[in-house]
């Protein structure tokens, strides 16, 4: 099953596989790391992994729907990064560190 062709001819499966790997890395970063900046980077990674799979599917099916979705995702990702960083800055100003555990103070 696993022949040399698999590695030489780059197809849809490769993109999806790569997308899955990137998504997992991003998720691990969000779940494991305590640093908020790194967690935000993990979120970006997950979003971009999804973007990658969108593009791959778009290419495969031959229409532009996937591209349009990607634009939306990028827009939202930008907004999300803005909010996330603002929170990180606020936390840093108060505690001089950007550890996720300080977010517990957000509850009432």
């Amino acid at each position, binding site marked *: 099953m696993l022949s040399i062709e698999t590695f030489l001819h780059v197809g849809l499966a490769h993109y999806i596989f790569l997308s899955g790997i990137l998504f997992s890395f991003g*998720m691990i970063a969000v*779940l494991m790391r305590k640093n908020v900046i790194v967690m935000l980077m993990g979120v970006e990674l997950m979003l971009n992994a999804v973007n990658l799979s969108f593009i791959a599917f778009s290419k495969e099916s031959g229409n532009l729907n996937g591209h349009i979705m990607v634009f939306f995702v990028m827009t939202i990702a930008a907004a999300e990064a803005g909010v996330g960083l603002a929170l990180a800055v606020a936390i840093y100003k108060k505690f001089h560190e950007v550890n996720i555990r300080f977010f517990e103070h957000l509850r009432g």
Partner: protein
Amino acid sequence: MNHALLIMTLLLAPLLGFLFNGFRFSSKDAYLAGTVATGAAAISFFCSLLLWKDLLALPVESRVIATHFFDWINVGALNVRFGFVVDQISAIMILVVTGVGSLIHLFSVGYMAHDERPTKYFAYLNLFLFNMLILVLGDNLVITFVGWEGVGLCSYLLVGFWFTDSQKASAGMKAFVTNRIGDAGFLIGMFTLFFAFGTLNYADLAAIIPKVPETAWLGTITIATLCLFLGATGKSAQIPLYVWLPDAMAGPTPVSALIHAATMVTAGVYLFVRMSNVLVMAPHTMEVIAWVGASTAFVAATIGVTQWDIKKILAYSTVSQLGYMFLAVGVGAFTAAQFHLMTHAFFKALMFLGSGSVIHAMHEEQDVRHMGGLKKYLPITHITFVCGWLAIIGMPPFAGFFSKDEILFQAFASPYGNKGLWALGVVTAGLTAFYMTRLMCLTFWGKSRFGHDKHPHESPPTMAIPLIILGVFSVIGGWVGIPHVIGGGVGIPNILEGWLEPVTAQLKETEVSGLLEWGLMGFSVAVAAISALIAYSFYILSPETPKSIAAALGGFYDAVCNKYYVDEFYQGWIINPLVEGSKALWLYIDVNFIDKATYLAGDLVSGAASFVKTVQNGKTQSYALYMALGVVVVMTIVLL
């Protein structure tokens, strides 16, 4: 005038009086409160008169004014209407209740003028009147039971009215608890009747009841009526539940007159007159009622002979007279029972009010040993009291003579009666004459035995007027039921008998010669007269004789004097075992099992929760992890 409106006014006037006084209960203005309360009672009395007049205008066979305001309970087969009925029985009852009630309200204005909480008192009194009217007007057992419970509550409130005295407060409690025992019987009887016949309406019950008397002791009707009778023994103070009534004298004296002589305690008698058509189908119950009534009459009269408290004497006399009424019910003489109920309401209310006047004049002294010779200080009270005295001992032509004679005659001649019951009744009549004469001698006649610091004075007009009116009725009240053997010759009809005939169960007349009737009548009057003379000679002419007789009787006298130790018996053999048993149940069963079980249930829940609550720890990342895990699980399920 519209009858529904009239009945509504009749009922609501005392209720409004209660609300008016109830909302300003802390006021000390006895005259305003008394005027409103008396006015409310008088409005009710006026409505009763109008209803009675309208009832008279109807033809004899359809003398019923019924109204129903709304359907109260409508569940499955049970359909209870909030309905009221004025017929021949309840017309007499509402006239007595509101008439005597109004007079007692009026009397209270003077009696309670210097009390701490007059407004509260009058509020309770109006509330009592309202409940009593509901009791007698209700067209089914459930409505009657509502009134039955309501008057019980008011009795409790008024007996314990001076609740700062713990003895008086506990007398109220005793009245209430004793009545609860009877009420349980009332409820069971009601359930049994509903179970058997599917209705609780008096008219429907009378129509639906089988027309064959039950012979079995365990028949449905017999059991139901026996249970209802247990309720009646509680409310109407019969053996075995009569013990609360003498203690209930702790209340203000007008309350004793209204509730514990004229109206509430007769509710049991009223109930059986109302249910006469059902009762005659249970001859065994009637037998029980007759014997219980006769024995109560006798036992209470013997105790009455030995008492020294003026109100206690009257209380035992009330128990005894109620026994007469139940004797009449038991021998099927429902007319006689209702008749005695009415005359007794007049003369006993009169005597209680008279005793109130005496107590008022003597500055709260109730012991007859410290009275005597009050005749010249309290002329009005004395004259009216004499009327009551002659009425209760059954001297012709006073009211009590006709009703008591009718009962004794029926006990002798009715198909349900027998000579034993009659003999017990006659002996009781003799005892009644004895202790009432003794009361008269010790209180009003003879030499005065009170100190010079006391200056008895006649009561104000608000107290004297009710006495005079009731005194008049104690004389003429019996003339509505003059027996044929006396009245027939000169053309005076027995109005009452004809009045009640259509609504009560009729027994087949036993043919008795006029001579026998005259003989029985003469005999009982003679017995009463002789005992009265003996009492007079004992307490006026030779005051030492009673003491020597009491000394000669020794232990027996002590037993009677201490009410046969019935209270001690109940305390020792019923109340204490119950209390001890409950304590044992509490300390053993409740603490060891029930409490432990609930603790265990609580521990189980909190234990389970302490495991689950670690999941919700407030850490953002662990929530994210659960989310991711959830997605993985869902995806696994979907994809595989």
